């Protein structure tokens, strides 16, 4: 068909017929890679999202522009989403008592109190 678009870019394309059926096959957008972004040297890499890519090399090439075209960045990691292992949400209760175990925490030890008590007792 001859295009009659306001977009000269579109007028250079050979568009198909209106109503034409176009279907994308499952898997055509490749695999999913999680992206981790390091803002400055010495900082942790932080998860920022994911990209669809056919392999790790292109995942990294894509991640660079999708996740580091504006913000400060010194490095990126990509990891296939299928290789991420995580706890089930139902297992959240395994972490429930963390905050109570004060023997693991500096705040759990009242050193000054004891020193003051000792000093007063003298």
């Amino acid at each position: 068909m001859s295009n009659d678009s306001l977009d000269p870019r579109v007028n250079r394309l050979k568009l198909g017929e209106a109503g034409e059926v176009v279907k994308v096959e499952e898997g055509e957008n490749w695999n999913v890679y999680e992206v981790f972004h390091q803002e400055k040297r010495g900082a942790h890499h932080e998860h920022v999202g994911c990209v669809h890519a056919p392999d790790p090399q292109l995942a990294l090439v894509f991640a660079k522009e999708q996740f580091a075209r504006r913000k400060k960045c010194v490095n990126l990691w990509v990891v296939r989403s299928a290789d991420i292992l995580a706890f089930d949400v139902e297992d959240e209760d395994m972490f429930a008592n963390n905050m109570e175990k004060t023997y693991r925490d500096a705040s759990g030890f009242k050193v000054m109190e004891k020193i003051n008590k000792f000093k007063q007792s003298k």
Partner: protein
Amino acid sequence: MMNNAAISDLIIKMADDELIQGHRNSEWTGLGPVMEEDIAFSSMAQDKIGHAWALYRILHEDLAGPDPDKFAFLRPEKEFKSAHLVEMPNGEYDFSLMRHFLFDHAEAIRYESLQDSSFEPFRMLSKKVKGELKYHTLHANAWLMQLSKAGEESYHRMQQSLNDTFALAAGLFEASPEHESALIADKVYPGEKELFHRWMDRIYPLLVQASLNLPDMKTITPVYGGRQGFHTEHLQPLLKEMSEVFNLDAEASW
């Protein structure tokens, strides 16, 4: 004393290539084969147009040339010095990728050579664009390798695109006879012939690695003419678009 006319000629050649190539690449923005690649290719289109802008600014600021916007967008076709390679319509993605591969390596080689230029603005600019060009060539190499090894159709498309673009790409190295020897003597840059050889040395092993066959040099005639103001039929329509809004009122601020 530097030969300003010769340097201006070189700047305009480089800038016009980047401006037109950037516009061609920007035609893919929103229409790429997959969103991630759309984004990457668009960034590189922006970079190209940005490099052109930087070069026109050097012309304006260091060589008393015209206003960059007016010069880039309102010049008659005859005064453009772009090579035919960058003027060609995008075609299919294989053509665009192969052009990107050949053009960006040529660009990278050119800027690398400018790191030692006697013309200081070139030295500064080459330092500034180094990282961008590293990404552009990394991107181009990744696609070249992958698509050349991804089955018969894909391989044939890449080979066909190489056949279609190679003589055009060789045309990037068209010297301007009246300025070339002065630029080399003044150590502004090493000259087109030298750059062409460096470019061949760079792309040849990559093409071999991708199992692609470089067309026989004996049968290739580099497509020249762009540097002298002779252009393909595709340039004028694009220039008309680029100037359309400005031309509504060239004195107004947009």
